[in-house]
């Protein structure tokens, strides 16, 4: 099946299979995480899904900036004014019932959007409690999350990713790979009918559970979804029982993309979590999967089945992921912030709503209709009084028709209420730690101690932290922005010292992190602990003079972002190179001759204020 497959991606056949599965059982499977750039391949896939979904099943596109009201349903503005009483409007999610919601640019979706989608996937209904309305709407829908993320830090929120059964990566496919579909709409309809009758035998369940464990997939939801996918594949193939082929497909589409480690016993060493029960007979690695005859002992054949599944999984794990897994690091998890990107939006309209206030909607603020009506409501009897109305400046909202002059609701300017928003701007502190030989000699341990104390402060303020270390050839991002201080501490403790000082590379990395954080709407700040004596250039060559100049040039670039920062000189005596760096960065310079960790922290805190 993998003729046209390039390393790392999903083959078109699998993608077609996924579309068919999604069309057959959207709500049961949760849906599809589709990693692909916009283009003909993605469009063809979506068109396939549209064709295969039964005619009565809707497919709605949810834009990334969808408002909560539109998503969940809420007050129908026009209808409410027209009728003079609250009129509810169905939300997008309720409209998707029985079909599929396509979430565009899922990697930029806000937390709230993700949380609502997750709730719908869990409960199959939308719970509405807003704008004075309350109700439930059935919404058994699947979600297709279109992920256009390029970098590692742009990924769909884990809460959503976990609930979507099928993970596809079509980035490596081109139009030439597209082939006609092996299914048609009739087959999908037949599969829909058959699905409830398909059984999943005991040993198949066990094989899937074992494979999930061996691949280091903690979430049980993944295993549950794999079982459902296996059943759906069998239903699509006209079977009444989950067979080997269905299991293979489930592993390829559900388990393999979620793997956090390789299913080899040697690999268990770099997992510091509790020892897991390793599946039986995996010692062989490559040779055992060839084929135990099924006639042997039952457990042996189960083991073989699982082995084969694991091989299928390894074969379809993307190559770059494979490399990373071998290096012992799982896919990075990150905390998606608000997904709106800067400057274009006005502050008054941005962020999370936090209550309402009297105000004038014409100045660009968003009118809160419910609050406005509420403010107007107590006065209606008075205002309807002809004498009061003669007063003149009554603006009538909701003139029902031209024939009627008497407004249903009299709203005056003082009733206007606008929604206030608050932008939750998270601050992220980037620690850039010099672990080179010169620094290590002097006071790497001390710097580590100081950072730990600073981390505790970050915890108190609910800040995020990121950690960049540099030594030897180049800087390394030890920890992408996270709120998990335990991870930060662990990474820091494991940081070895020694080697050259690639300062330019470190400043570059800090700058790119700063940009990343700003793009997400956060407020970055950095703390650089170094003696400033660069001796490694960006290209890895040595030379104090050239490296120093490069570092200063990089520093001036970072300075242009006008981000708050400070340089802590870790050399034994205050040294002009660190001071020079601080000046180029436009950062605060703190020489620390023989200070202990607490003094260092105090200095940083004083500087931060």
């Amino acid at each position: 099946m993998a003729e046209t497959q390039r390393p790392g991606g999903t083959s078109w056949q699998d993608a077609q299979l996924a579309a068919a599965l999604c069309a057959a059982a959207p709500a049961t499977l949760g849906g599809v995480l589709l990693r692909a750039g916009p283009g003909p391949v993605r469009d063809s896939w979506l068109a396939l899904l549209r064709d295969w979904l039964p005619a009565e099943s809707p497919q709605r596109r949810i834009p990334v900036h969808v408002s909560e009201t539109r998503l969940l349903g809420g007050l129908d503005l026009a209808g409410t004014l027209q009728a003079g009483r609250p009129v509810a409007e169905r939300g997008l999610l309720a409209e998707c019932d029985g079909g599929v919601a396509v979430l565009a640019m899922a990697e930029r979706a806000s937390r709230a959007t993700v949380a609502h989608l997750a709730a719908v996937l869990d409960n199959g209904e939308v719970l509405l409690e807003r704008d004075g309305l309350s109700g439930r709407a059935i919404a058994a829908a699947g979600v297709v999350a279109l992920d256009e993320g390029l970098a590692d830090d742009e990924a769909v929120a884990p809460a959503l990713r976990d609930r979507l059964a099928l993970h596809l990566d079509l980035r490596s496919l081109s139009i030439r790979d597209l082939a006609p579909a092996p299914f048609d709409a009739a087959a999908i309809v037949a599969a829909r009918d058959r699905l409830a009758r398909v059984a999943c035998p005991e040993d198949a369940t066990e094989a899937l559970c074992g494979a999930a464990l061996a691949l280091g997939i903690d979430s049980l939801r993944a295993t549950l979804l794999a079982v459902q996918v296996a059943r759906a594949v069998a239903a699509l193939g006209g079977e009444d029982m989950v067979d080997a082929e269905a299991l293979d497909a489930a592993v390829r589409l559900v388990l393999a993309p979620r793997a956090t480690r390789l299913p080899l016993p040697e690999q268990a060493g770099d997992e510091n979590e509790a020892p897991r029960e390793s599946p039986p007979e995996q010692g062989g690695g490559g040779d055992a999967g060839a084929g135990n005859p099924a006639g042997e002992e039952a457990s042996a054949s189960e083991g073989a089945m699982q082995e084969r599944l694991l091989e299928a999984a390894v074969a379809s794990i993307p190559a770059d992921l494979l490399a990373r897994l071998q290096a012992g690091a799982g896919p990075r998890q990150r905390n998606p912030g608000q997904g709106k990107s800067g400057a274009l939006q006005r502050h008054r309209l941005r962020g999370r709503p936090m209550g309402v206030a009297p105000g004038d909607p014409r100045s660009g603020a968003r009118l809160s209709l419910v609050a406005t009506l509420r403010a107007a409501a107590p006065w209606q009897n008075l205002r309807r009084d002809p004498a009061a109305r003669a007063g003149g400046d009554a603006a009538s909202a909701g003139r029902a028709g031209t024939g009627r002059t008497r407004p249903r609701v009299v709203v005056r300017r003082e009733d206007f209420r606008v929604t206030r928003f608050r932008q939750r701007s998270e601050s992220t502190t980037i620690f850039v730690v010099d672990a080179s030989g010169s620094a290590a000699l002097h006071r790497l341990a001390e710097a580590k101690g100081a950072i730990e104390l600073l981390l505790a402060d970050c915890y108190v303020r609910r800040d995020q932290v990121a950690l960049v270390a540099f030594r030897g050839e180049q800087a390394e991002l030890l920890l992408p922005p996270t709120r998990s201080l335990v991870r930060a501490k662990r990474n820091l403790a494991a940081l070895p010292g020694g080697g050259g000082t690639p300062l330019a590379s470190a400043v570059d990395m800090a700058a790119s992190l700063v940009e990343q954080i700003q793009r997400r709407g956060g407020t970055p700040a950095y703390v650089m602990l170094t003696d400033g004596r660069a001796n490694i250039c960006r290209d890895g060559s040595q030379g104090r003079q050239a490296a120093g100049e490069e570092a200063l040039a990089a520093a001036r670039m970072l300075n242009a972002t006008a981000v708050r920062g400070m340089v802590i000189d870790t050399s034994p005596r205050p040294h002009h190179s660190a001071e020079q760096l601080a000046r180029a960065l436009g950062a605060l310079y703190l020489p620390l001759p023989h200070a202990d960790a607490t003094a260092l922290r105090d200095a940083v805190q004083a500087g931060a204020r």
Partner: protein
Amino acid sequence: MAPAFPFTAIVAQDEMKRALLIAAVDQDVGGVLVFGDRGTGKSTAIRALAALMPKMQVVAGCPYNCDPAGAKPMLCDSCVAAAGGTPLKTRAQPVPVVDLPLGATEDRVIGALDLERALHAGEKAFEPGLLARAHRGFLYIDEVNLLEDHIVDALLDVAASGENVVEREGLSIRHPARFVLVGSGNPEEGELRPQLLDRFGLSVEVQTPRELATRMQIVRSRDAFERDRAAFVKKWQRKEGRVRRQIQSARENLDGVDVPDRVLELAARLCMALGTDGLRGELTLIRAARALASLEGREVAGEEELRKVAPSVLRHRLRRDPLDEAGSGTRIERAMEQLFS
């Protein structure tokens, strides 16, 4: 609404189930917080609890689910007025488990002016919110750590006082709102505000089971449930009934459970050893131990009960060292080892 997954069919996660049952027996224990990995059945368990609760008696027609047996502070104004010496009309009703969805607006949570009546009839009427609906039941907040701050503020006060005071839009209303706050969330996505953390009596950390057998059992039962919900629920009906009766009798016998001085002293010493702030930890410890004893059909709450509930009660009350990897659970275990030897 589709039938929920039965509570008794939930595999493993004993601490979570125990904490929820304790909260079901004694509402004053103060709520349950369930924090943990994705896909561990947090929401499933909490929703399942709703189906398990015995019915309760409420004043007929009261929007706040008032308890007919309640005295004045537990009754809303209209019930007090209606009572006036004569017995109130009552009816049995399932215990409410109210969802507070993430997007909920303030007016729906605390209640607000009834827009329709105000616009139509020009009346100033109060439309009760979620807090009113949750009175005497459960208020469930999924992803509690992502809740908007202004909603949290509204919740904090009500959860502490058991009364919802509404002063807005020309309304001046107060009504009882005593509910068990149940929150769930994933700590990776954000911390909980300390004030809100303090409102939870019990906190549970759930983890994905790592044994193949357990995982298989979960997958199997979940699959059976998905395939035929009605049949699955029916299969567990008897067991559900048994636990329901257990809760019922535990509630009735709760006041009769004795807590000897020795156990009180142990609780106090445990809290002192761990350096928990305030007295709330001790009080909750005793309450939870008593509820657990009652649940197990005992008349005396002993050391055993104390041991079982201590981790859930104290876990979130320890002054936290954010960099201590050992976690609060281990510290509690250690302290108990020393005290209870």
